[in-house]
């Protein structure tokens, strides 16, 4: 599975260095932070052999165009970013044209893989669920009308959709029954009002049914020939790679590691900048740099053993180094877990979760109490999620 950069505010040299160093295979660019001219320039700068460049149209954010305090950045400078008439979405009449305009914008940027727009699905049995399926059903045909490009359909769904297991499985049954299906899917799971916790421990995505549902969706789509790219996905990325995902994108701040529709609304700003963190693949967690150094002095196994480790042993690394280490660790974890044999890979991942739990317990015994319980709880959630997935996918 490839790791992609989830583009957002303040990329500086992270993308170019990540691509140069090979810790990312491409990027999902955001028109919220790039005007059309700047997008074209960025794409030209990042383009290269074997690199995957995508643009997330973020069309679902048109829902906030009439919000009293929208936070849409440069999205409104894109021609396709027009509020659709609800009635035309429900009847489906507007959908082919919306997709075509959006894909044309991406083709005009020089991209060869286009992400179709969609609406955000809050509940499995909602009207939006039907509208989103309609967007999926039209994606391939719309791409053909634009030119020769690969079509990815967007599945932007709230975590609550995954909590309705039967509803989710019905949606996946419907997706796999689409005539003339898209080449792939770009999947986003939103958690409503995420806070910038700087750590995924408190993330609502870490729920067994959400993890299992996301794994199931990746698995069912990929075994049926679809390419699956997961957006805003950090340490869960490798697990999704085990289930057949082609790529997972994550970025350099929490809002780029976990998707939330709340980012399209202005919120009270302030607070401290998050502390620099280190991704420990043996612990399956992002830990603060001082904690990493302290843990490593007692249990050396907590190190990810990737080239960027050296940066953390000196002074505090830069934000760019932090992003590179994060991508590098996720990529290493993914490579270690993905052989293509799903049963063996799941077993491997379960053993890693087990080993991570042992390491956290060992840290606790060594006197490091902070975050241990929360991490053990999160690992248990992952374990339950895998177990539930095995049942859903009829692998158990």
């Amino acid at each position: 599975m490839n790791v992609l950069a989830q583009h957002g505010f303040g990329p500086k040299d992270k993308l170019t260095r990540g691509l140069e160093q090979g810790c990312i295979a491409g990027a999902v660019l955001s028109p919220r932070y790039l005007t059309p001219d700047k997008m074209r320039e960025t794409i030209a700068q990042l383009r290269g052999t074997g690199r995957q460049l995508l643009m997330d149209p973020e069309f679902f954010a048109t829902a906030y165009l009439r919000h009293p305090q929208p936070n849409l950045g440069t999205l409104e400078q894109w021609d396709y970013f027009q509020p659709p008439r609800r009635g035309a979405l429900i009847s489906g009449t507007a959908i082919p044209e919306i997709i075509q305009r959006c894909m044309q914008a991406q083709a005009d940027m020089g991209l060869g893989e286009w992400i179709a727009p969609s609406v955000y699905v809050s509940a499995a049995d909602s009207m939006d669920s039907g509208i989103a399926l309609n967007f999926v059903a039209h994606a391939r045909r719309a791409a053909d009308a634009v030119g020769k490009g690969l079509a990815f359909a967007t599945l932007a769904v709230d975590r609550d959709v995954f909590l309705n297991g039967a509803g989710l499985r019905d949606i996946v049954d419907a997706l796999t029954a689409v005539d003339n299906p898209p080449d792939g899917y770009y999947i986003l799971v939103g958690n409503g009002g995420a806070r910038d916790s700087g750590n995924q421990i408190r993330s609502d995505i870490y729920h067994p049914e959400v993890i299992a549902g996301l794994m199931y969706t990746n698995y069912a789509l990929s075994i049926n020939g679809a390419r699956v790219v997961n957006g805003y996905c950090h340490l869960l990325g490798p697990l999704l790679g085990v289930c057949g995902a082609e790529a997972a994108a994550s970025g350099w701040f929490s809002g780029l590691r976990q998707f939330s529709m709340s980012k399209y609304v202005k919120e009270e700003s302030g607070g401290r900048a998050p502390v620099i963190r280190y991704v420990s693949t043996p612990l399956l967690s992002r830990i603060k740099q001082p904690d990493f150094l302290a843990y490593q002095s007692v249990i050396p196994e907590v190190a990810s053993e990737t080239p960027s480790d050296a940066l953390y042993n000196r002074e505090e690394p830069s934000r760019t180094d932090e992003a590179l280490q994060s991508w590098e660790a996720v990529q290493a974890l993914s490579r270690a877990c993905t052989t293509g044999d799903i049963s063996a890979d799941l077993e491997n991942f379960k053993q890693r979760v087990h080993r991570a739990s042992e390491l956290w317990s060992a840290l606790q015994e060594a006197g490091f109490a902070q975050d241990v319980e929360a991490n053990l709880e999160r690992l248990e959630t992952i374990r339950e999620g895998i177990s539930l997935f095995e049942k859903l996918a009829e692998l158990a």
Partner: protein
Amino acid sequence: MQFPIPRVQDMQQALGLPSLPVFIKPGGFKAVYRMQNARGENEALKAIFLPTATTDEETLVRDQLVARAKREIAALQARPSQHLVTLGSVPAQMHHLGGYDYLVYSEEFLQGDPLDRWVGRQPPPTFAEIRTLFQTLIGLIRDLSQIGYLHRDIKPDNVIATGLPERPFVLLDLGIAYKMHGTELTQGGGPPGTLRYMAPELLKPDYKDNMDFRCDLYAAGLTVYVVASGTHPFAPRPESQYATAYRIIHSTPQPLASYRGDFPSAFCSIIDRCIRKRPALRYARLELVEEDLGKVAP
């Protein structure tokens, strides 16, 4: 279903046949005979019983039977595949025989074994036979779907092994075939078909919303599984339909490879995938099945 079976003499007279037809078997509302056409060739003559319609319910049943027969005939007239039974010399016609109404028509008469006779056969079917059977069924599902039909009753009893190299397996009985986007023929009650070969989604109350070719794919996979393994994973012994329905929904079959270690494991995995519970976990497109089959060594 018990219904009055027309006498062979009445059938001969009504149809002006050169010789007496021979009664073979009843099935549902249908009686099947072997007859000879004007050229002296055997054909399968079918007489569909149409109950007297004195109540609304009887009228509904009668109308459905007529409509299904017409649909079957229309599908066969389209000749979508050489592996489907073909129509015979007697076109569809109504007759009043022995005081009851029947819709009568003929199909080609197929020599060979219904595949249910292969279940538990010794020696068991070879990989070459099973592979050909599966390829034939997949081709049939594709051909039917191209004219907008689902078969809905693929099972060993409805497949004849002819022994002919150009046409080794022929599928019978499109009597409950379903025309996608067509007029509804079944109202109320459960789905028509044979429970033992029914995909799990067809056992849901909203099954009509979930029907697509993957129901036929499931039945084809299960047919192959049963013929190859010699056992039915959801109905291993006679038991109530409720028990069978429960197993269809909840039981996970043993991998086919556990019965047929002599088959390529990749082939067994394809069959196992076809009989997964969730349609999404089967194959979303028939080309994907054919692609996977292409990777299995002959």
